[in-house]
């Protein structure tokens, strides 16, 4: 496993950071999170066309740039840092990855180029009202009449489910296997309902399927393996997104205490503030290490990658919310106000505790895949 980024990767990170500082300042995030659509189509276009981020890890033969999970994770880390409002995680990280791992070559050729170019916004619908992200929790059934599959049931907590034009989803085949399917948002029997998201920068929806025609991606017995790989990538990218957010909170808090005066001195000069800042640095550095290790384990094809990925999700999510709690506390009363930016990351951290499975569940998954 590699423990440093290459010069190219560092440069890639800088480009994204500069882009997001320019295109996604918190004032804009506030507007978008209070708005109807939840993202800025112009920024999305620029991110796709100018930076090519939507093509990042899609294979070159399907219009992508063919990079690995590590590069994808660098992008999500920076997006987490900037709290970017965009369907990148749903479309590129989740849906595109699922298609890459599940679909046949023809299907990939049909679906991936438009995702790579950002024309199509896709999402991946896994969890159902029971809220589980593992294959075992998926109860939705797919029946078949000839070549056409029909879907019956409800998906919930679907990221960007209201805006996605293409829905990839997991359902249970008659043979008991998991199948990954693609459905257009305009298909028959698709009913989408927005969910009230506590974190308004991450929009969720419930989607009901009533005898909806769908295309099975790949074979009727490869869904489990494809979903397992997809899930690991999603989780590693989320870990990096969270690490990026945690680092931002840490830096902002440090800046604030260095500026704020109480009792005639900077509050950064109080020993308890200093020690808290030191603990936050330790926590965030450890979280970054875990998140990077998760991405690297996937790129390396490590046997215990699932364990490392789940370790990262559990650890980083706890660090993120803990850092957010410290950040509010270090800002004092102002940190609890809506007008202070800290609350935006706090809510993202809170929602991230449970998105894609909570810490307890991932720790159990980690031990089940532990080999060391």
């Amino acid at each position, binding site marked *: 496993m590699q423990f440093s980024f290459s010069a190219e990767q560092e440069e890639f990170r800088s480009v994204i950071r500069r882009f997001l500082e320019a295109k996604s300042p918190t004032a804009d995030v506030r507007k978008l999170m209070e708005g109807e659509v939840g993202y800025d189509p112009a920024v999305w276009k620029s991110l796709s066309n100018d930076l090519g981020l939507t093509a990042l890890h899609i294979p070159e033969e399907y219009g992508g740039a063919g990079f690995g999970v590590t590069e994808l994770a660098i992008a999500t880390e920076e997006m987490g840092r900037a709290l970017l409002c965009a369907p990148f995680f749903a479309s590129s990280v989740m849906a595109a990855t699922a298609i890459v791992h599940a679909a046949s070559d023809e299907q990939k050729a049909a679906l991936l180029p438009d995702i790579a170019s950002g024309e199509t916004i896709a999402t991946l619908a896994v*969890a159902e009202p029971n*809220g*589980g992200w593992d294959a075992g929790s998926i109860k939705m059934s797919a029946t078949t009449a000839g070549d056409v599959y029909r879907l019956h049931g409800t998906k*919930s*907590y679907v990221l960007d489910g209201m805006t996605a034009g293409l829905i990839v989803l997991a359902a249970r085949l008659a043979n008991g296997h998991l199948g990954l399917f693609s459905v257009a948002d305009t298909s028959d029997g698709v009913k989408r309902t927005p*969910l*009230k*998201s*506590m*974190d308004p920068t*991450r929009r*969720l929806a419930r989607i009901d399927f009533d005898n909806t025609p769908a295309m099975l991606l790949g074979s009727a017995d490869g869904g489990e393996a494809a979903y397992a790989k997809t899930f690991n990538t999603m989780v590693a990218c989320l870990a990096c997104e969270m690490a990026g957010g945690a680092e931002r909170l840490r830096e902002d808090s440090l800046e604030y205490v260095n500026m*704020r*005066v*109480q*009792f*005639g*001195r900077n509050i950064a000069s*109080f020993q*308890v*503030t200093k020690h808290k800042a030191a603990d936050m640095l330790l926590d965030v550095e450890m979280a970054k290490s875990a998140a990077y290790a998760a991405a690297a384990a996937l790129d390396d094809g490590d046997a215990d990658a699932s364990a490392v990925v789940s370790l990262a999700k559990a650890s980083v999510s706890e660090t993120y*919310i803990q850092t957010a*709690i410290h950040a*509010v*506390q270090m800002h*004092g*009363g*102002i*940190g*609890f*106000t*809506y*007008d*202070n930016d*800290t*609350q935006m990351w*706090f*809510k993202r951290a*809170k*929602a991230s*505790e*449970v*998105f894609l499975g*909570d*810490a*307890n569940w991932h720790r159990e998954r980690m031990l089940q895949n532990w080999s060391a």
Partner: protein
Amino acid sequence: MTDMTEQQVREEVRAFLKANWDPNLSLVAWRNILVDSGWGAPHYPKEWLGKGLPAAMSLVVDEEIREFGAVGAAKMGIRTLAGATILAHGSDLHKQTYLRGILTGQETWCQLFSEPGSGSDLAGAATRADFKDGKWIINGQKVWTTSAHHADFGLLLARTDWDAVKHKGLTYFIIDMRQPGIDVNQLKQMNGHASFNQVFITDAVIEEDMRVSELGEGWKVATTTLMHERRGADGARRYDAKIERPEQLYQEYNEEIDHQLAPYIWYPQRTGRVDLLIEHAKAEGRYEEPAIRQEIAKVLSMAKAAEWTARRAHAAQNLGKPPGPEGSIGKLAASHVARAANRVHTMIAGANAMLTGSDSWMDGTIAEILVSTPAISIAGGTDEIQRNIISERVLKMPKEMRTDTDRPFREVPRNQVG
């Protein structure tokens, strides 16, 4: 101290209520009767509308009144701090003018201490009070002022001497909030409520007889107010609940609650709602998960231990020991409990923790917990300030080296406020 036992108190209250309670009176009329009897504020001294009973005994009285189905004196909001402060430091004029209105609920109070530039460092207040033509002219900006938007009076800490050292230049006033020159702005919080206010004060006027402290001695009086505030923040606080009965008095009482409780409507959630943990886990079908049970049990234990510690402190007071900084212990414990409860509610909620409003359990109650608990370790003095107080006042450890207390306040570095 008094010689009445708890049993005697309970009996006397019941006898009084039996003889006097009448829900067909107006709320104010009834409360005047109650206040005149001394049972409205039994912990007030006999000469000032009370009975000179220990503070904890007044909880017993409240309990009796509640159980009888009657309504007690007005207790919500800053009024109790105003009452305690006026009793301890106010002039006879202040007591005469304000105590009854506080208890009958006819007048509402707010506390004008914090400023944008001085939060934890309350004594760093920079709102100015200048004496001109026999009156005090007030200018400055206050913040975190609960109820300022409907308050009749405010407890004001303002600087009257800029050449004195920090703690010696403040004076404590009662200010009439219903005057020009006072502008109140609501501040929205991260949980969506707007309970606090910014108060912009421009050439507001206070008569000299509404000065509570000696000149430059305001900090001492403020510490009384703060001590009472902390004691109320140990998580054991209870809020009045509406009573659904037909008579007019109940209607007025319920309206009062709606009105005055509005800023506090999310306060139960900021405590973490330990009371909901088991119910929540059962509702999510997770109460049998061993790892979740462990976490629930930890929070319940912490909350119970905090409650018992508060009761030990109250019991000590009942035995005649003066109220001390144990409020800081309770407040700190409440922070721990709230934070832990938030964590466990999240764990229980699973994916539902991402939702809010009507999509969250109990019509948004859980979601409100998740984004409200950070307030409890800040409001009324941060956890850090409480630990300073405990270590310095209870444990008598050395005070933090200070560079701001031994020179004229005008020379002390402070935040620039826009």
